[in-house]
């Protein structure tokens, strides 16, 4: 930085300018509304009670033991995560502990539990981390809401930038020449292609 004393002032001024550059008055209004709605939704969701343990814990006696195949066990295990070795799906985890958990799934299946009940049971026993995704309640909603919000904000900024650049008066220079003139070969090629198109 060439002139240090002035630097801080420039920094501050520029920071403000950047802010206004992206955010116009009307946008601020819209964003306030948007954030309001967002907060309201978040509060609503966090107030909503999480799904409790299913009332029905009595096993129904429908399934017969022989009917439970490895594939049925794996279909559930692949959507659960090993409670001890993190980030390893239960169906492929080679440890002894996971083999026992897969056996547990099998027993529950034999006992007539369905997939949802087994997952709930695992989540209750070992915490939400055994689920492949955070359950949709409370703070966890953030994981689902934030990326689309940021993406939309990015889209908005992009759109405004494009519009502003498009409407901007031509500034310092005559219209920048199309690049192709920079590379004489390319312009010849484009010319050739255009001629071909017309034929």
């Amino acid at each position, binding site marked *: *930085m060439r002139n240090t004393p002035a*630097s801080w002032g*420039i*920094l501050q001024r*520029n*920071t403000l*300018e*950047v802010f206004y550059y992206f955010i116009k008055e009307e946008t601020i209004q819209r964003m306030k509304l948007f954030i309001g709605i967002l907060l309201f939704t978040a509060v609503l969701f966090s107030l909503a009670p999480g799904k409790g343990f299913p009332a029905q814990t009595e096993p129904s006696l429908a399934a017969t033991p022989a009917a439970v*195949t*490895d*594939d049925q066990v*794996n279909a559930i295990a692949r*959507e659960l*995560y090993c409670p001890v070795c*993190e*980030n*390893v*799906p239960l169906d*492929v985890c*080679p440890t002894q502990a996971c083999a026992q958990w897969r056996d547990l799934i099998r027993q529950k299946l034999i006992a007539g539990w369905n997939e949802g009940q087994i997952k709930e049971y695992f989540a209750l026993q070992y915490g*939400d*981390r*055994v689920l*492949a*995704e*955070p359950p949709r309640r*409370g*703070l*966890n909603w953030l*994981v*689902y809401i*934030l*990326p689309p919000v*940021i*993406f939309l904000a*990015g*889209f908005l900024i*992009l759109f405004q930038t*494009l519009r502003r*650049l*498009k409407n*901007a*008066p*031509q*500034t*310092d220079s*005559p*219209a*920048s*020449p*199309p*690049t192709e003139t*920079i*590379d004489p*070969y*390319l312009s010849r*090629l484009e010319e*050739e*292609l255009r001629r*071909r198109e017309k034929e």
Partner: protein
Amino acid sequence: MIANFGFGTLIISFVVSLYGIGAAVYGARRNALAWAESARAAMLLTWPLLTLTAASLIYLLVTGHYEVQFVYNVTSNAMPLYLRVTALWGGQAGSLVFWSWLMAAFASAVTLRSWERDREFQPWVIVVSLVTLAFFLGLIIFLENPFVRFWQTANGMQVVSMFQPSGGALLLPPDGRGLNPLLRHPGMIIHPPMLYLGFVSFVIPYAFAIAALVTGRSDDRWIRITRRWTLVAWLFLSLGLVLGSRWAYDVLGWGGYWGWDPVEIAAFMPWLSGTAFLHSVMIQEKRGLFKRWNLILIIITYSLVIFGTFLTRSGVLSSVHAFAQSSIGPLFFGFISVTFLISMALLLHRWNDLRSQGHMTSLLSREALFLVNNLLFMGILVVCMWGVLFPLVSELFTGQKVTVGPPFYERAAGPLFGALVFLMGIAPLSAWGHSTVKTLGRAVWKPSLAALAILIVAIVSGVQNGAALAAIFVIALTACITVYEYGRGVAARMRRSGENPLAALWRLAGRNRRRYGGYIIHLGVTLMAVGIIGIEMFQTETQGALKPGESLQLGRYAVTFRSLAQFDTPDGRSVARAVVGVSRDGQPLGELYPRRDFYYDTQQPMTIPGVRSSIEDDLYVLLVDWQPISSEGATFKVYHNPLVNWLWVGGLVFILGTFVAAWPSREEPVPVRVPAQLVTEP
């Protein structure tokens, strides 16, 4: 003592780096050429010094000096020579040494270029490189010293320290603990170096960007200088990612290649922002727009590079990759924050000098579409970043540990990837500056017909999944457009100069390597997308316990259990190896040998699949379990992975395209034409 020697060179290179930083800053501020030159000499000295450090460590590894803790942790007597050498990056301390060594090599290489046109950049490029290097060297020396040894003190205590405690004697364990078996694979020999090369070479464009900001040069000189560096960085990062996926497919035994594991994502994130950067710099070069955005992108990429190294090395996020865990997390976090804030402050300081110099004429112009490309890459980046960070946020605020797994990423990033592939087809057709629906439409209708034909073929052959059909159409469209673009160029050349098609293709690509290399990369991506769609949407699996002679049926394939043998190998494994016969529609296709290796030294099992691979599909057989007496039977898991080989072939095409784009041209030395209207006086 070799260990002391290695540590000594490490200390000297750290001191030299600190000196270089000081000399460069002083030289630049006082305009003292001698100091700047001295800083350059310091920069050049780091690489030979670190070469000595790395060589000492490799010597210790190869000769089995188990009194050195690092050597004890990652090698054992049973390991062959090549694994002992590559064990250098098998543990945290060694891989930091390796990282620094690569960093010094790249930074030294860049100081050797000719600097006549941009002498004012040089000291600042050196400062940025050396600050990065000094940070890593400091970490190694103070926290992760690979040269610490085991000592026995006079009163019989065992201590780990760099220097001899008073009255202490060296402890020499007879054997080491051995490398994590997951890392004893040829893929692991080249995958980490490629990734690290990609990481460190992204520091170079960042260093030039900072130099441009500090010196107040607002033209696109820094971009033109680093264009090839960026491509090389990107090439290595891409290679690292592809090799990593291949390694996962071959070794991890889950039937897939990408598990959205935090560490995979950590390596993927700089690639995302780097790819966005590669595209958006073209807008600045061609049209003088979005200078600020390019600087933001390279700053983000640098932060993500450090973040990636941090995630793989700190163990802050537990994952299958968390081989090396330690307490260096907060320091990494601090370094990332400080460099990021300083970079952004510099950018804000120069904000007004970096106005766009053109204006946008059409929302369908190439530059507008490139911006949409950037938005999509950034969108995927946000999804990845948030997915990686959220478990920490959750643990911090609620104490509840959660997993953010593949379903989240696939749902959130899948459509963005689809849109990217679509854009990849359309954008090359639009022209810089001006494009209309009409000009785009005229260029696109023929390839669209071809893509439609492919879609109809897919429907007729029984694909019913809507998402898959949409993906197939988009991929087909993009592939057709890209091939069509090539065809147009070749035809134009043939008409003009009467060359035969092959010569025309060769010369066409040769004359504008960047453009046609880019198209080859795009083709590679579409091929990879075919493979990804195949395995992600059409993978099937089954599992069953078989007695000898029994078979497991999966689609048209049958897997028959023949026999199983258990034996010990000289390199310290207990191997259970099954022989299974494979047939399709009753036609025998040969045998596969899925096995489970148990490593005695580390007490860890490895599941090695038996794979029958063809361009159409892979049959991937895992040995899950077996009875002690093999005649009683074994459990197998069988995956059918359609089209997965397209992923690897596409990866090769992709890398080839990057080579074409990055290869130095002989015919025309890199043009350094700054259009007159883009030059501003600093």
